[in-house]
């Protein structure tokens, strides 16, 4: 049965091994219970000649015994799973980042150099790849069974998952959280290609702006430079070198300027007012969609810290 579902991601076989391991342990427990039930039902059926003498009275030892055995088995399984989960959860450094926006009822994929696709995700084999996801509307869930990975795409925040494809081929992408009428049709293809094929594919998508370049265009067209630009009279935070820094907040706390922070700043500016600034930034909710926000973030990320200034 496992031949039906390919093991196309680096951790897929470990997940399958864990599953098989649990299958064996659960199978043993089930088998034991079934066997005992069967044996007892036959041997001790009413009217059978088996001896009923010396029925056990004291049960403490037996109770503690099987409770402990169960607990030990379960704790072992927990640790096995926890170890694998820790490796599954944290993306390794230097991933190839691809951006995905889920919306009713399609997946919009954006590669960092601007190539866009819908309901398809082209990736190179044998690379660590991270998918950064946002939802345009409701909760979706990004699921690639062949890689054994899944992550909900929750509106209002960024979620990410990572994988390392090991087999060239085409695999199913499915939405795994009910999101409305055509939830069942929100499926797509994950196309794993060799590195040269992937580069050909990228080049073949036609000229276009990289994500950061389209972000820069948006930055201008939305008038962000009016406050955040060099010649502005408005006291607004300088965005150069901001991405990834710890920002002191007006309420005394700190926040890291990651994707969620910048997205909140654009849509819900009162959420994290930086220290020393008034909550004067207007909200751009309704003026930008998730794809555009990703472009803006890519642009801001590309702004180096100005030389000579302490970041």
């Amino acid at each position, binding site marked *: 049965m496992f031949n039906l579902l390919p093991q196309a991601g680096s951790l897929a076989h470990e997940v399958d091994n864990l599953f098989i391991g649990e299958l064996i342990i659960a199978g043993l427990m089930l088998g034991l219970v079934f066997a005992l039930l069967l044996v007892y039902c036959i041997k001790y059926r009413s009217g059978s000649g088996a001896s009923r003498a010396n029925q056990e009275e004291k049960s403490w030892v037996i109770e503690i015994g099987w409770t402990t055995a169960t607990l030990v088995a379960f704790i072992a399984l927990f640790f096995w799973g926890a170890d694998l989960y820790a490796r599954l959860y944290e993306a390794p450094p230097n991933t190839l980042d691809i951006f995905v926006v889920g919306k009713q009822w399609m997946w919009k994929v954006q590669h960092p150099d601007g190539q866009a696709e819908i309901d398809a995700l082209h990736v190179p084999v044998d690379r660590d790849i991270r998918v950064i996801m946002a939802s345009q509307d409701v909760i979706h869930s990004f699921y690639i069974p062949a890689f054994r990975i899944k992550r909900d795409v929750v509106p209002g925040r960024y979620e990410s998952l990572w994988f390392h494809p090991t087999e060239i081929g085409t695999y199913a992408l499915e939405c795994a959280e009910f999101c409305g009428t055509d939830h069942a049709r929100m499926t797509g293809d994950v196309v794993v290609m060799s590195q040269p094929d992937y580069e050909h594919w990228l080049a073949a998508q036609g000229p276009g702006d990289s994500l950061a370049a389209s972000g820069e265009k948006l930055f201008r067209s939305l008038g962000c430079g009016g406050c955040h630009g060099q010649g502005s009279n408005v006291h607004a935070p300088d965005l150069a070198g901001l991405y990834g820094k710890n920002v002191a907040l007006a*309420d005394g706390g700190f926040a890291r300027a990651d994707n969620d922070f910048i997205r909140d700043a654009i849509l819900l*500016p*009162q959420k994290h007012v930086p220290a020393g600034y008034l*909550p004067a930034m207007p909200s751009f909710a309704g003026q930008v969609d998730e794809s555009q926000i990703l472009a803006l973030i890519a642009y801001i990320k590309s702004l180096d810290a100005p030389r000579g200034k302490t970041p």
Partner: protein
Amino acid sequence: MAEPRVVTKELAGPYADLHHQKQTANLGVWAFLSTEVLFFSALLTAYSVYRFLYPQGFAEAGRHTEVLLGSINTGVLLTSSLFMALAVHAIETGARRLMMLFLLITALLGLAFLGIKGIEYSKEIGEGLLPGAFFTYSGPYAHTVEIFFFIYFLATGIHALHLSIGIGALFFLIWRTRRGSFTAEYHAAVEGVGLYWHFVDAVWVFIYPLIYLVGRNT
């Protein structure tokens, strides 16, 4: 005690005697109050989550509550609890008329609370703070203020509903007293309503600082 006795007029259910009935009713009221604790806790959990996420917005919203009226109301409700306790004490010594008086004062104080709450609500609605179609508050924290006032109206509204039911129960008790239902030996219903009243008071003691005192130290 399992013998099916002749059920006397006072026994309202499958109890052995009046003492048994009172014990049972008492435990029932406590169990019911525990469900109410969970009910309000869920709402206060939502409050806590958003206060943690938006401290400044909540502080600003808190400053728009009517802290004077809210504080007066706290005094009113605590005093009403005092009179409720006095009412129970009165019937324990058989002082039926005194109990009726105290119950009436409790109910009137409860009504005063509702009246003051009504004044608060009308002020807040007049300022455009009712969440929904008539919400006119603007400013950078407008969304958060709307969430705050949503929780405020829901929490105080449900509290007021519980209080109203309590007031109704008090008048019911007064009516029953006039018919001679309560004695020093048996007044389980009075104790039960008393427990309920004190609980409604306790809920207010939690709501008050969370709603009125947030943001007031600046």
